[in-house]
Protein backbone atom coordinates (compact mmCIF):
# COMPACT_ATOMS: atom_id res chain seq x y z
CA UNK A 1 0.00 0.00 0.00
CA UNK A 2 1.36 3.41 -0.90
CA UNK A 3 1.97 6.05 1.77
CA UNK A 4 -0.95 8.18 0.58
CA UNK A 5 -3.24 5.16 0.76
CA UNK A 6 -1.96 4.37 4.27
CA UNK A 7 -2.71 7.91 5.40
CA UNK A 8 -6.17 7.78 3.85
CA UNK A 9 -6.84 4.44 5.55
CA UNK A 10 -5.89 5.85 8.95
CA UNK A 11 -7.86 9.05 8.41
CA UNK A 12 -10.95 7.82 6.55
CA UNK A 13 -10.91 4.09 7.25
CA UNK A 14 -10.44 3.26 3.58
CA UNK A 15 -7.56 3.57 1.11
CA UNK A 16 -10.02 4.89 -1.48
CA UNK A 17 -9.84 8.68 -1.75
CA UNK A 18 -12.78 11.01 -2.29
CA UNK A 19 -12.87 12.59 -5.78
CA UNK A 20 -10.49 15.57 -6.01
CA UNK A 21 -11.72 19.13 -5.42
CA UNK A 22 -10.69 21.82 -7.88
CA UNK A 23 -10.96 25.54 -7.18
CA UNK A 24 -12.47 27.49 -10.10
CA UNK A 25 -13.07 31.18 -10.59
CA UNK A 26 -14.43 33.64 -13.06
CA UNK A 27 -14.20 36.70 -10.84
CA UNK A 28 -16.11 37.90 -8.99
CA UNK A 29 -17.64 34.40 -8.94
CA UNK A 30 -15.78 31.38 -7.57
CA UNK A 31 -16.63 27.81 -6.67
CA UNK A 32 -15.16 24.37 -6.07
CA UNK A 33 -15.66 21.57 -8.59
CA UNK A 34 -15.91 17.96 -7.42
CA UNK A 35 -17.27 14.83 -9.06
CA UNK A 36 -19.28 16.68 -11.68
CA UNK A 37 -20.87 19.11 -9.24
CA UNK A 38 -20.07 22.55 -7.92
CA UNK A 39 -19.85 23.59 -4.27
CA UNK A 40 -19.73 26.92 -2.46
CA UNK A 41 -20.60 29.26 -5.31
CA UNK A 42 -19.47 32.64 -4.02
CA UNK A 43 -19.66 36.21 -5.19
CA UNK A 44 -16.54 37.69 -3.62
CA UNK A 45 -16.84 36.53 0.00
CA UNK A 46 -20.61 35.89 -0.06
CA UNK A 47 -21.84 32.34 -0.44
CA UNK A 48 -24.76 32.31 -2.90
CA UNK A 49 -25.27 28.58 -3.33
CA UNK A 50 -23.94 25.65 -1.27
CA UNK A 51 -23.93 23.29 -4.23
CA UNK A 52 -25.33 22.28 -7.59
CA UNK A 53 -24.94 18.65 -8.61
CA UNK A 54 -26.52 15.82 -10.53
CA UNK A 55 -28.01 13.45 -7.95
CA UNK A 56 -29.09 9.99 -9.05
CA UNK A 57 -31.03 8.04 -6.41
CA UNK A 58 -31.59 4.32 -6.59
CA UNK A 59 -34.93 2.63 -5.92
CA UNK A 60 -34.41 2.84 -2.11
CA UNK A 61 -33.38 6.52 -1.95
CA UNK A 62 -29.73 5.51 -1.78
CA UNK A 63 -27.41 7.53 -4.01
CA UNK A 64 -25.49 6.17 -6.99
CA UNK A 65 -21.82 7.09 -7.21
CA UNK A 66 -21.07 8.85 -10.48
CA UNK A 67 -18.15 7.43 -12.45
CA UNK A 68 -16.47 10.23 -14.30
CA UNK A 69 -15.79 9.40 -17.95
CA UNK A 70 -14.28 12.69 -19.06
CA UNK A 71 -13.81 16.33 -18.27
CA UNK A 72 -13.21 19.41 -20.42
CA UNK A 73 -12.47 22.90 -19.28
CA UNK A 74 -11.99 26.09 -21.26
CA UNK A 75 -11.93 29.76 -20.51
CA UNK A 76 -11.46 33.06 -22.22
CA UNK A 77 -11.75 36.63 -21.00
CA UNK A 78 -15.54 36.43 -20.80
CA UNK A 79 -16.35 32.99 -19.59
CA UNK A 80 -15.32 29.77 -17.91
CA UNK A 81 -16.80 26.55 -19.27
CA UNK A 82 -16.63 23.15 -17.57
CA UNK A 83 -18.04 19.91 -18.80
CA UNK A 84 -17.96 16.52 -17.11
CA UNK A 85 -19.45 13.32 -18.46
CA UNK A 86 -20.25 10.41 -16.17
CA UNK A 87 -21.81 6.97 -15.97
CA UNK A 88 -23.98 5.24 -13.41
CA UNK A 89 -23.35 1.50 -13.24
CA UNK A 90 -25.05 -1.34 -11.40
CA UNK A 91 -22.57 -2.39 -8.71
CA UNK A 92 -20.82 -4.76 -8.78
CA UNK A 93 -21.68 -6.07 -12.27
CA UNK A 94 -20.49 -2.84 -13.86
CA UNK A 95 -23.20 -2.59 -16.55
CA UNK A 96 -23.90 1.02 -17.57
CA UNK A 97 -27.41 2.06 -16.52
CA UNK A 98 -27.29 5.75 -17.24
CA UNK A 99 -24.94 8.25 -18.81
CA UNK A 100 -24.87 11.94 -18.03
CA UNK A 101 -23.29 15.23 -18.95
CA UNK A 102 -22.96 18.30 -16.73
CA UNK A 103 -22.13 21.53 -18.54
CA UNK A 104 -21.39 24.68 -16.55
CA UNK A 105 -20.87 28.11 -18.04
CA UNK A 106 -19.79 31.01 -15.86
CA UNK A 107 -19.63 34.66 -16.81
CA UNK A 108 -19.15 37.66 -14.52
CA UNK A 109 -22.89 37.88 -13.82
CA UNK A 110 -24.31 34.46 -14.51
CA UNK A 111 -23.86 30.73 -13.93
CA UNK A 112 -25.67 28.25 -16.12
CA UNK A 113 -25.74 24.55 -15.23
CA UNK A 114 -27.20 22.10 -17.75
CA UNK A 115 -27.63 18.39 -17.06
CA UNK A 116 -28.40 15.79 -19.68
CA UNK A 117 -29.20 12.21 -18.62
CA UNK A 118 -29.69 9.26 -20.94
CA UNK A 119 -30.99 5.92 -19.69
CA UNK A 120 -28.90 3.09 -21.22
CA UNK A 121 -30.99 0.33 -19.64
CA UNK A 122 -34.26 0.07 -17.72
CA UNK A 123 -33.40 2.36 -14.82
CA UNK A 124 -35.32 2.36 -11.53
CA UNK A 125 -34.90 5.51 -9.49
CA UNK A 126 -36.60 7.54 -6.78
CA UNK A 127 -35.23 10.73 -8.32
CA UNK A 128 -32.70 11.64 -10.98
CA UNK A 129 -31.82 15.19 -11.78
CA UNK A 130 -30.31 18.49 -10.71
CA UNK A 131 -30.16 19.41 -7.06
CA UNK A 132 -29.47 22.97 -5.94
CA UNK A 133 -28.50 23.52 -2.31
CA UNK A 134 -28.91 26.89 -0.57
CA UNK A 135 -26.79 27.69 2.49
CA UNK A 136 -28.33 27.86 5.99
CA UNK A 137 -26.45 30.92 7.26
CA UNK A 138 -28.25 34.07 6.23
CA UNK A 139 -31.04 32.11 4.52
CA UNK A 140 -32.98 30.55 7.43
CA UNK A 141 -35.96 32.84 8.05
CA UNK A 142 -35.02 35.17 5.17
CA UNK A 143 -37.55 36.65 2.73
CA UNK A 144 -37.63 35.13 -0.77
CA UNK A 145 -39.70 35.62 -3.92
CA UNK A 146 -40.99 32.60 -5.82
CA UNK A 147 -42.49 32.37 -9.29
CA UNK A 148 -44.56 29.30 -10.10
CA UNK A 149 -45.74 28.02 -13.44
CA UNK A 150 -48.72 30.41 -13.10
CA UNK A 151 -46.56 33.50 -13.69
CA UNK A 152 -46.58 36.22 -11.01
CA UNK A 153 -44.02 36.53 -8.22
CA UNK A 154 -45.10 35.55 -4.70
CA UNK A 155 -43.42 36.71 -1.52
CA UNK A 156 -42.52 34.17 1.11
CA UNK A 157 -40.03 33.32 3.84
CA UNK A 158 -37.56 30.53 4.27
CA UNK A 159 -38.35 28.52 7.43
CA UNK A 160 -36.47 29.52 10.58
CA UNK A 161 -37.25 26.39 12.60
CA UNK A 162 -36.97 23.23 10.50
CA UNK A 163 -40.09 22.64 8.45
CA UNK A 164 -41.35 19.04 8.31
CA UNK A 165 -43.02 19.70 4.94
CA UNK A 166 -41.71 21.30 1.77
CA UNK A 167 -41.56 25.10 2.15
CA UNK A 168 -42.08 25.80 -1.57
CA UNK A 169 -43.60 23.84 -4.45
CA UNK A 170 -43.55 24.26 -8.21
CA UNK A 171 -40.57 26.60 -8.34
CA UNK A 172 -39.83 28.11 -11.77
CA UNK A 173 -37.80 30.96 -10.36
CA UNK A 174 -36.55 32.01 -6.95
CA UNK A 175 -35.09 35.36 -5.83
CA UNK A 176 -33.21 35.88 -2.60
CA UNK A 177 -30.52 38.10 -1.17
CA UNK A 178 -27.82 36.71 1.12
CA UNK A 179 -26.81 39.18 3.87
CA UNK A 180 -24.94 42.14 2.40
CA UNK A 181 -25.58 41.05 -1.18
CA UNK A 182 -27.74 42.65 -3.88
CA UNK A 183 -29.41 39.31 -4.58
CA UNK A 184 -29.67 36.51 -7.10
CA UNK A 185 -32.31 34.87 -9.24
CA UNK A 186 -32.44 31.14 -9.94
CA UNK A 187 -34.39 29.90 -12.97
CA UNK A 188 -35.25 26.22 -13.33
CA UNK A 189 -36.09 24.39 -16.56
CA UNK A 190 -36.78 20.83 -17.60
CA UNK A 191 -38.93 19.43 -14.75
CA UNK A 192 -41.11 20.49 -11.80
CA UNK A 193 -38.87 21.67 -8.94
CA UNK A 194 -39.68 22.08 -5.25
CA UNK A 195 -37.82 22.79 -2.02
CA UNK A 196 -37.16 20.62 1.00
CA UNK A 197 -35.85 21.74 4.39
CA UNK A 198 -32.90 19.43 4.28
CA UNK A 199 -31.78 20.45 7.76
CA UNK A 200 -34.22 17.71 8.86
CA UNK A 201 -31.51 15.17 7.92
CA UNK A 202 -28.62 17.25 9.28
CA UNK A 203 -27.67 18.45 5.81
CA UNK A 204 -26.21 21.94 5.94
CA UNK A 205 -28.62 23.28 3.31
CA UNK A 206 -32.07 23.84 1.89
CA UNK A 207 -32.52 21.64 -1.17
CA UNK A 208 -34.27 22.39 -4.45
CA UNK A 209 -34.83 19.23 -6.45
CA UNK A 210 -36.71 17.99 -9.48
CA UNK A 211 -39.86 15.84 -9.48
CA UNK A 212 -42.37 16.47 -6.69
CA UNK A 213 -42.16 14.20 -3.68
CA UNK A 214 -45.94 13.65 -3.99
CA UNK A 215 -45.41 11.76 -7.26
CA UNK A 216 -45.01 7.97 -7.01
CA UNK A 217 -41.57 6.48 -6.32
CA UNK A 218 -39.67 4.58 -7.42
CA UNK A 219 -40.27 5.09 -11.11
CA UNK A 220 -38.63 3.65 -14.18
CA UNK A 221 -36.83 5.29 -17.08
CA UNK A 222 -37.08 3.22 -20.25
CA UNK A 223 -33.84 2.61 -22.20
CA UNK A 224 -33.14 5.58 -24.43
CA UNK A 225 -35.04 8.08 -22.27
CA UNK A 226 -33.31 11.43 -22.32
CA UNK A 227 -33.78 14.10 -19.65
CA UNK A 228 -32.53 17.68 -19.90
CA UNK A 229 -32.62 20.06 -16.97
CA UNK A 230 -31.09 23.45 -16.44
CA UNK A 231 -30.66 25.94 -13.65
CA UNK A 232 -29.44 29.46 -14.30
CA UNK A 233 -28.21 31.79 -11.57
CA UNK A 234 -28.19 35.48 -12.42
CA UNK A 235 -26.83 38.21 -10.18
CA UNK A 236 -29.29 41.02 -9.45
CA UNK A 237 -28.67 43.96 -11.73
CA UNK A 238 -27.68 41.78 -14.67
CA UNK A 239 -29.88 42.97 -17.53
CA UNK A 240 -32.95 41.01 -18.55
CA UNK A 241 -32.27 39.07 -21.69
CA UNK A 242 -28.56 39.03 -21.04
CA UNK A 243 -28.57 35.22 -20.88
CA UNK A 244 -25.38 34.41 -22.64
CA UNK A 245 -25.35 30.66 -22.93
Amino acid at each position, binding site marked *: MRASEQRERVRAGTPLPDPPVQHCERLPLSFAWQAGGLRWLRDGGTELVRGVAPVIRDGEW*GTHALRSSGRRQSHDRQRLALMETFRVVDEPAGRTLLTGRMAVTVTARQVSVALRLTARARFTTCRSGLVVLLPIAGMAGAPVEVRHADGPWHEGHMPRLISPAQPFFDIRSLRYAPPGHAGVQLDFEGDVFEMEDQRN*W*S*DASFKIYNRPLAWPTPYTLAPGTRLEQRVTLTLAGAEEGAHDH
Partner: protein
Amino acid sequence: MTTEHHTLAIRRAWPDRLPPIGCGLWLDRCSDEAGLGQRLDQLAPRHLDVLVDLRDPAFADRLAVAGALCVARAVPLWLYVICDDEEPDAQLEQLARTLAVHRLLPAGMLVTPAAYLKSHQPEGPWPAGASPAQVLALARLRWPAIPLGGGFPTYFTELNRCRPEPGSIDFITHALSPIVHAADDLSVMETLESLPAIFASCRALAPAVPYRLTTTAIGAWTNPYGAQLTANDGTRRVTLSDRDPRQRGLFAAAWNVGLVARTACAGVASLTLSSLGPPFDVADDGPRPLLPVLRGLSRGAGQPLLTTAPVAATVAGVGWQTGEHEGELWLANTGLQPISVGLQGSAVTALAMLDEQRLLAAPATAAMLDQPAPCDTRTVTLSPCAVARLTVTLPPE
Protein backbone atom coordinates in the same frame (compact mmCIF):
# COMPACT_ATOMS: atom_id res chain seq x y z
CA MET B 1 -1.19 22.30 1.43
CA THR B 2 -1.70 25.66 3.08
CA THR B 3 -2.24 25.90 6.83
CA GLU B 4 -5.24 27.94 7.85
CA HIS B 5 -4.82 29.82 11.14
CA HIS B 6 -7.58 30.23 13.72
CA THR B 7 -7.51 32.41 16.80
CA LEU B 8 -9.98 31.11 19.35
CA ALA B 9 -11.12 32.48 22.68
CA ILE B 10 -12.05 29.98 25.38
CA ARG B 11 -15.37 30.90 26.99
CA ARG B 12 -16.70 29.83 30.37
CA ALA B 13 -20.23 28.80 29.47
CA TRP B 14 -21.42 28.77 33.08
CA PRO B 15 -24.07 27.74 34.19
CA ASP B 16 -24.01 25.18 31.36
CA ARG B 17 -22.30 21.90 32.08
CA LEU B 18 -20.95 19.26 29.73
CA PRO B 19 -23.77 16.76 29.15
CA PRO B 20 -23.19 13.08 29.90
CA ILE B 21 -22.03 11.04 26.90
CA GLY B 22 -23.20 7.47 26.61
CA CYS B 23 -22.98 4.70 24.06
CA GLY B 24 -25.46 2.63 22.07
CA LEU B 25 -26.05 -1.10 21.97
CA TRP B 26 -28.04 -3.08 19.41
CA LEU B 27 -29.18 -6.19 21.25
CA ASP B 28 -30.10 -8.02 18.05
CA ARG B 29 -26.57 -7.53 16.71
CA CYS B 30 -24.53 -8.16 19.83
CA SER B 31 -23.83 -11.69 20.99
CA ASP B 32 -20.32 -11.21 22.37
CA GLU B 33 -20.70 -10.86 26.14
CA ALA B 34 -16.95 -10.73 26.89
CA GLY B 35 -16.42 -8.08 24.24
CA LEU B 36 -19.29 -6.06 25.60
CA GLY B 37 -17.89 -6.01 29.12
CA GLN B 38 -14.44 -5.09 27.83
CA ARG B 39 -15.79 -2.20 25.77
CA LEU B 40 -17.84 -0.94 28.72
CA ASP B 41 -14.66 -0.85 30.81
CA GLN B 42 -12.57 0.80 28.10
CA LEU B 43 -15.13 3.47 27.28
CA ALA B 44 -16.75 4.07 30.69
CA PRO B 45 -19.89 5.54 29.09
CA ARG B 46 -22.23 7.56 31.32
CA HIS B 47 -25.23 5.56 30.11
CA LEU B 48 -26.17 2.91 27.59
CA ASP B 49 -28.99 3.35 25.06
CA VAL B 50 -30.06 -0.18 24.23
CA LEU B 51 -32.10 -0.89 21.12
CA VAL B 52 -34.46 -3.70 22.11
CA ASP B 53 -36.44 -5.17 19.24
CA LEU B 54 -39.21 -7.16 20.93
CA ARG B 55 -39.86 -9.00 17.66
CA ASP B 56 -36.51 -10.76 18.10
CA PRO B 57 -37.05 -13.80 20.40
CA ALA B 58 -33.46 -13.55 21.66
CA PHE B 59 -34.09 -10.12 23.19
CA ALA B 60 -34.86 -11.36 26.71
CA ASP B 61 -31.64 -13.32 27.23
CA ARG B 62 -29.49 -10.64 25.69
CA LEU B 63 -31.15 -7.87 27.68
CA ALA B 64 -30.49 -9.85 30.85
CA VAL B 65 -26.79 -10.09 29.96
CA ALA B 66 -26.39 -6.44 28.96
CA GLY B 67 -28.43 -5.30 31.94
CA ALA B 68 -26.28 -7.26 34.39
CA LEU B 69 -23.09 -5.78 32.93
CA CYS B 70 -24.55 -2.28 33.32
CA VAL B 71 -25.77 -2.89 36.87
CA ALA B 72 -22.32 -4.16 37.86
CA ARG B 73 -20.77 -0.90 36.61
CA ALA B 74 -23.60 1.43 37.71
CA VAL B 75 -24.19 2.46 34.08
CA PRO B 76 -27.80 3.72 33.64
CA LEU B 77 -29.77 1.69 31.13
CA TRP B 78 -32.08 3.44 28.66
CA LEU B 79 -34.29 1.23 26.54
CA TYR B 80 -35.24 2.12 22.97
CA VAL B 81 -37.92 -0.47 22.40
CA ILE B 82 -39.31 -1.56 19.03
CA CYS B 83 -42.61 -3.40 19.26
CA ASP B 84 -44.92 -5.09 16.83
CA ASP B 85 -47.63 -2.65 15.80
CA GLU B 86 -50.40 -5.29 15.82
CA GLU B 87 -49.78 -6.80 19.24
CA PRO B 88 -47.83 -4.20 21.19
CA ASP B 89 -49.28 -5.02 24.61
CA ALA B 90 -48.45 -8.72 24.45
CA GLN B 91 -44.87 -7.83 23.61
CA LEU B 92 -44.64 -5.18 26.31
CA GLU B 93 -45.83 -7.87 28.73
CA GLN B 94 -42.83 -10.01 27.72
CA LEU B 95 -40.53 -7.04 28.28
CA ALA B 96 -42.08 -6.39 31.70
CA ARG B 97 -41.50 -10.03 32.69
CA THR B 98 -37.88 -9.88 31.57
CA LEU B 99 -37.24 -6.68 33.53
CA ALA B 100 -38.92 -8.10 36.63
CA VAL B 101 -37.14 -11.48 36.52
CA HIS B 102 -33.72 -9.87 36.14
CA ARG B 103 -34.52 -6.93 38.42
CA LEU B 104 -33.63 -4.35 35.82
CA LEU B 105 -34.87 -0.81 36.29
CA PRO B 106 -34.36 1.28 33.15
CA ALA B 107 -33.56 4.96 33.62
CA GLY B 108 -36.01 5.69 30.82
CA MET B 109 -37.76 4.14 27.88
CA LEU B 110 -38.97 5.01 24.40
CA VAL B 111 -41.40 2.63 22.70
CA THR B 112 -41.76 2.72 18.92
CA PRO B 113 -44.19 0.65 16.85
CA ALA B 114 -42.18 -1.11 14.12
CA ALA B 115 -44.11 0.53 11.28
CA TYR B 116 -42.87 3.92 12.50
CA LEU B 117 -39.27 3.01 11.75
CA LYS B 118 -40.30 4.02 8.25
CA SER B 119 -40.75 7.68 7.43
CA HIS B 120 -44.20 9.07 6.65
CA GLN B 121 -45.06 12.45 5.22
CA PRO B 122 -46.36 14.89 7.88
CA GLU B 123 -49.87 14.84 6.43
CA GLY B 124 -49.96 11.00 6.43
CA PRO B 125 -51.25 8.48 5.53
CA TRP B 126 -50.14 6.81 8.77
CA PRO B 127 -49.69 3.06 9.38
CA ALA B 128 -52.82 1.13 10.32
CA GLY B 129 -51.44 -0.43 13.55
CA ALA B 130 -50.70 1.10 16.94
CA SER B 131 -49.42 4.68 16.91
CA PRO B 132 -46.53 6.03 19.02
CA ALA B 133 -49.10 7.78 21.25
CA GLN B 134 -50.97 4.51 21.78
CA VAL B 135 -47.89 2.49 22.73
CA LEU B 136 -46.80 5.33 25.01
CA ALA B 137 -50.15 5.07 26.80
CA LEU B 138 -49.75 1.30 27.12
CA ALA B 139 -46.25 1.71 28.51
CA ARG B 140 -47.47 4.40 30.93
CA LEU B 141 -50.02 1.98 32.42
CA ARG B 142 -47.38 -0.69 32.82
CA TRP B 143 -44.48 1.49 34.04
CA PRO B 144 -45.91 4.53 35.82
CA ALA B 145 -42.59 5.24 37.57
CA ILE B 146 -40.24 5.05 34.57
CA PRO B 147 -39.61 8.19 32.48
CA LEU B 148 -41.16 7.58 29.06
CA GLY B 149 -40.08 9.46 25.98
CA GLY B 150 -41.42 10.81 22.73
CA GLY B 151 -39.59 10.77 19.44
CA PHE B 152 -37.87 8.09 17.40
CA PRO B 153 -34.70 6.00 17.43
CA THR B 154 -34.22 7.19 13.82
CA TYR B 155 -33.54 10.72 12.63
CA PHE B 156 -34.93 14.15 13.46
CA THR B 157 -37.05 14.05 10.28
CA GLU B 158 -39.26 11.27 11.62
CA LEU B 159 -39.80 13.17 14.89
CA ASN B 160 -40.48 16.45 13.11
CA ARG B 161 -43.04 14.73 10.86
CA CYS B 162 -44.78 12.83 13.68
CA ARG B 163 -44.66 15.04 16.77
CA PRO B 164 -45.54 13.81 20.25
CA GLU B 165 -47.98 15.63 22.51
CA PRO B 166 -45.44 17.57 24.63
CA GLY B 167 -47.45 17.17 27.84
CA SER B 168 -47.49 13.37 27.51
CA ILE B 169 -43.73 12.72 27.51
CA ASP B 170 -40.90 12.81 30.04
CA PHE B 171 -38.14 13.33 27.50
CA ILE B 172 -37.78 13.94 23.77
CA THR B 173 -35.30 12.03 21.66
CA HIS B 174 -33.99 11.22 18.19
CA ALA B 175 -30.75 10.17 16.51
CA LEU B 176 -28.81 11.72 13.64
CA SER B 177 -27.23 10.23 10.56
CA PRO B 178 -24.85 12.41 8.56
CA ILE B 179 -24.98 10.14 5.48
CA VAL B 180 -28.63 10.13 4.43
CA HIS B 181 -28.24 12.37 1.38
CA ALA B 182 -24.54 12.73 0.67
CA ALA B 183 -21.56 10.69 1.76
CA ASP B 184 -18.47 12.58 0.61
CA ASP B 185 -16.10 13.83 3.33
CA LEU B 186 -16.95 17.51 2.87
CA SER B 187 -20.71 16.98 3.08
CA VAL B 188 -20.40 14.75 6.15
CA MET B 189 -18.30 17.33 8.01
CA GLU B 190 -20.71 20.06 6.89
CA THR B 191 -23.58 18.33 8.69
CA LEU B 192 -22.17 19.84 11.90
CA GLU B 193 -23.34 23.22 10.62
CA SER B 194 -26.99 22.07 10.66
CA LEU B 195 -26.99 21.01 14.31
CA PRO B 196 -27.95 24.35 15.93
CA ALA B 197 -31.10 24.39 13.74
CA ILE B 198 -31.95 20.80 14.67
CA PHE B 199 -31.48 21.41 18.38
CA ALA B 200 -33.52 24.63 18.34
CA SER B 201 -36.29 22.98 16.30
CA CYS B 202 -36.46 19.91 18.54
CA ARG B 203 -36.40 22.05 21.71
CA ALA B 204 -39.38 23.97 20.36
CA LEU B 205 -41.40 20.75 20.04
CA ALA B 206 -41.19 20.03 23.79
CA PRO B 207 -39.50 22.90 25.63
CA ALA B 208 -40.14 21.60 29.16
CA VAL B 209 -38.62 18.09 29.04
CA PRO B 210 -35.02 16.85 28.79
CA TYR B 211 -33.67 16.40 25.25
CA ARG B 212 -31.70 13.21 24.65
CA LEU B 213 -29.76 12.80 21.45
CA THR B 214 -29.70 9.02 21.04
CA THR B 215 -27.22 6.81 19.26
CA THR B 216 -25.52 8.77 16.53
CA ALA B 217 -22.51 7.79 14.44
CA ILE B 218 -21.17 8.07 10.91
CA GLY B 219 -23.61 5.60 9.49
CA ALA B 220 -27.28 4.75 9.30
CA TRP B 221 -28.56 1.74 11.25
CA THR B 222 -31.80 1.60 9.31
CA ASN B 223 -33.26 3.18 6.18
CA PRO B 224 -36.60 4.87 6.95
CA TYR B 225 -37.00 5.82 3.28
CA GLY B 226 -36.52 2.48 1.52
CA ALA B 227 -36.59 -1.27 1.99
CA GLN B 228 -32.93 -1.69 2.94
CA LEU B 229 -29.62 0.01 3.58
CA THR B 230 -27.12 0.55 0.79
CA ALA B 231 -24.75 -2.40 0.40
CA ASN B 232 -21.19 -1.50 1.37
CA ASP B 233 -18.07 -3.65 1.69
CA GLY B 234 -16.82 -1.18 4.28
CA THR B 235 -14.48 0.69 1.95
CA ARG B 236 -16.89 2.96 0.10
CA ARG B 237 -18.45 6.28 1.07
CA VAL B 238 -22.09 5.64 0.26
CA THR B 239 -25.31 7.09 1.63
CA LEU B 240 -27.51 5.12 4.04
CA SER B 241 -24.92 2.51 4.97
CA ASP B 242 -24.17 0.90 8.35
CA ARG B 243 -20.59 0.11 7.30
CA ASP B 244 -19.14 3.54 6.67
CA PRO B 245 -15.33 3.38 6.59
CA ARG B 246 -14.92 6.75 8.32
CA GLN B 247 -16.48 5.38 11.49
CA ARG B 248 -13.25 3.33 11.80
CA GLY B 249 -10.91 6.24 11.08
CA LEU B 250 -9.66 9.47 12.57
CA PHE B 251 -12.46 11.19 10.68
CA ALA B 252 -15.03 9.89 13.19
CA ALA B 253 -12.95 11.17 16.12
CA ALA B 254 -12.92 14.70 14.69
CA TRP B 255 -16.58 14.63 13.65
CA ASN B 256 -17.60 13.52 17.13
CA VAL B 257 -15.65 16.32 18.82
CA GLY B 258 -17.45 18.69 16.45
CA LEU B 259 -20.77 17.11 17.38
CA VAL B 260 -20.11 17.38 21.13
CA ALA B 261 -18.98 21.00 20.72
CA ARG B 262 -22.20 21.91 18.88
CA THR B 263 -24.40 19.91 21.26
CA ALA B 264 -22.98 20.96 24.60
CA CYS B 265 -24.06 24.59 24.33
CA ALA B 266 -27.51 23.80 22.84
CA GLY B 267 -29.41 22.65 25.90
CA VAL B 268 -29.18 18.95 25.08
CA ALA B 269 -29.38 16.94 28.30
CA SER B 270 -27.42 13.90 27.13
CA LEU B 271 -25.93 12.41 24.02
CA THR B 272 -25.21 8.88 22.92
CA LEU B 273 -22.42 8.26 20.45
CA SER B 274 -21.49 5.11 18.51
CA SER B 275 -22.06 1.62 19.86
CA LEU B 276 -20.58 -1.27 21.78
CA GLY B 277 -20.50 -3.88 19.05
CA PRO B 278 -22.11 -3.45 15.64
CA PRO B 279 -23.26 -1.44 13.80
CA PHE B 280 -21.10 1.52 14.97
CA ASP B 281 -18.53 -0.30 17.03
CA VAL B 282 -16.00 1.75 19.00
CA ALA B 283 -13.65 -1.23 18.74
CA ASP B 284 -13.69 -4.32 16.56
CA ASP B 285 -10.29 -5.92 16.03
CA GLY B 286 -9.00 -3.19 18.38
CA PRO B 287 -10.01 0.23 19.64
CA ARG B 288 -10.94 2.69 16.91
CA PRO B 289 -9.51 6.24 17.06
CA LEU B 290 -12.93 7.36 18.25
CA LEU B 291 -12.68 5.31 21.43
CA PRO B 292 -9.99 7.26 23.34
CA VAL B 293 -11.79 10.48 22.38
CA LEU B 294 -15.19 9.37 23.67
CA ARG B 295 -13.56 7.91 26.76
CA GLY B 296 -11.94 11.27 27.41
CA LEU B 297 -15.02 13.39 26.75
CA SER B 298 -17.19 11.09 28.89
CA ARG B 299 -15.07 12.02 31.92
CA GLY B 300 -16.23 15.60 31.72
CA ALA B 301 -19.93 14.92 32.29
CA GLY B 302 -21.49 17.49 34.59
CA GLN B 303 -18.38 19.69 34.73
CA PRO B 304 -18.58 23.45 34.03
CA LEU B 305 -18.60 23.80 30.26
CA LEU B 306 -15.92 25.52 28.20
CA THR B 307 -16.63 26.49 24.59
CA THR B 308 -14.52 28.20 21.94
CA ALA B 309 -15.38 31.21 19.81
CA PRO B 310 -15.83 32.06 17.04
CA VAL B 311 -17.58 29.01 15.60
CA ALA B 312 -15.87 27.95 12.37
CA ALA B 313 -16.41 25.14 9.89
CA THR B 314 -12.90 23.73 10.14
CA VAL B 315 -12.22 23.76 13.87
CA ALA B 316 -14.20 22.59 16.90
CA GLY B 317 -13.42 23.09 20.58
CA VAL B 318 -15.13 21.91 23.74
CA GLY B 319 -14.02 21.23 27.29
CA TRP B 320 -14.59 21.86 30.95
CA GLN B 321 -13.15 23.76 33.82
CA THR B 322 -10.91 21.72 36.10
CA GLY B 323 -9.91 24.57 38.44
CA GLU B 324 -10.43 28.30 38.85
CA HIS B 325 -7.85 29.10 36.19
CA GLU B 326 -7.43 25.76 34.45
CA GLY B 327 -9.39 23.66 32.02
CA GLU B 328 -9.32 20.57 29.81
CA LEU B 329 -9.98 21.49 26.20
CA TRP B 330 -10.52 19.17 23.22
CA LEU B 331 -9.80 20.57 19.78
CA ALA B 332 -10.51 18.94 16.44
CA ASN B 333 -9.64 19.82 12.88
CA THR B 334 -13.02 19.31 11.21
CA GLY B 335 -11.65 20.27 7.81
CA LEU B 336 -9.54 18.50 5.24
CA GLN B 337 -6.56 20.89 5.33
CA PRO B 338 -4.02 21.42 8.13
CA ILE B 339 -4.87 24.17 10.62
CA SER B 340 -3.08 25.98 13.42
CA VAL B 341 -5.00 27.24 16.42
CA GLY B 342 -3.95 30.06 18.72
CA LEU B 343 -5.75 30.44 22.04
CA GLN B 344 -6.38 34.04 23.07
CA GLY B 345 -5.21 34.69 26.61
CA SER B 346 -4.64 30.98 27.34
CA ALA B 347 -1.50 28.89 27.46
CA VAL B 348 -1.33 25.20 26.70
CA THR B 349 0.46 23.45 29.55
CA ALA B 350 -0.05 19.82 28.45
CA LEU B 351 -1.02 18.14 25.19
CA ALA B 352 -1.95 14.71 23.82
CA MET B 353 -2.35 14.47 20.05
CA LEU B 354 -4.34 11.98 18.01
CA ASP B 355 -3.44 12.34 14.36
CA GLU B 356 -2.44 10.44 11.22
CA GLN B 357 1.21 10.37 12.19
CA ARG B 358 0.55 8.78 15.56
CA LEU B 359 -1.88 6.23 14.15
CA LEU B 360 0.54 5.28 11.37
CA ALA B 361 3.15 4.54 14.05
CA ALA B 362 0.87 2.43 16.25
CA PRO B 363 -2.82 1.52 16.34
CA ALA B 364 -5.20 3.33 18.66
CA THR B 365 -5.55 2.25 22.28
CA ALA B 366 -8.25 3.15 24.77
CA ALA B 367 -5.84 4.97 27.09
CA MET B 368 -3.67 6.70 24.49
CA LEU B 369 -4.92 10.20 25.37
CA ASP B 370 -5.04 9.70 29.13
CA GLN B 371 -1.69 11.36 29.88
CA PRO B 372 -1.10 14.65 28.08
CA ALA B 373 2.60 15.53 27.96
CA PRO B 374 3.66 18.80 29.62
CA CYS B 375 4.40 21.63 27.19
CA ASP B 376 4.40 25.40 27.05
CA THR B 377 2.85 26.82 23.91
CA ARG B 378 0.06 29.06 22.70
CA THR B 379 -0.39 27.54 19.26
CA VAL B 380 -1.45 24.01 18.33
CA THR B 381 -1.12 22.60 14.80
CA LEU B 382 -3.64 19.98 13.75
CA SER B 383 -3.40 17.90 10.58
CA PRO B 384 -6.68 16.99 8.81
CA CYS B 385 -9.12 15.29 11.23
CA ALA B 386 -6.63 15.43 14.11
CA VAL B 387 -7.91 15.70 17.69
CA ALA B 388 -5.91 17.23 20.55
CA ARG B 389 -6.55 17.02 24.27
CA LEU B 390 -5.10 20.08 25.99
CA THR B 391 -4.63 21.30 29.50
CA VAL B 392 -5.05 25.07 29.29
CA THR B 393 -4.81 28.07 31.57
CA LEU B 394 -7.94 30.21 31.66
CA PRO B 395 -7.70 33.99 31.67
CA PRO B 396 -9.41 35.78 34.59
CA GLU B 397 -13.12 36.29 33.95
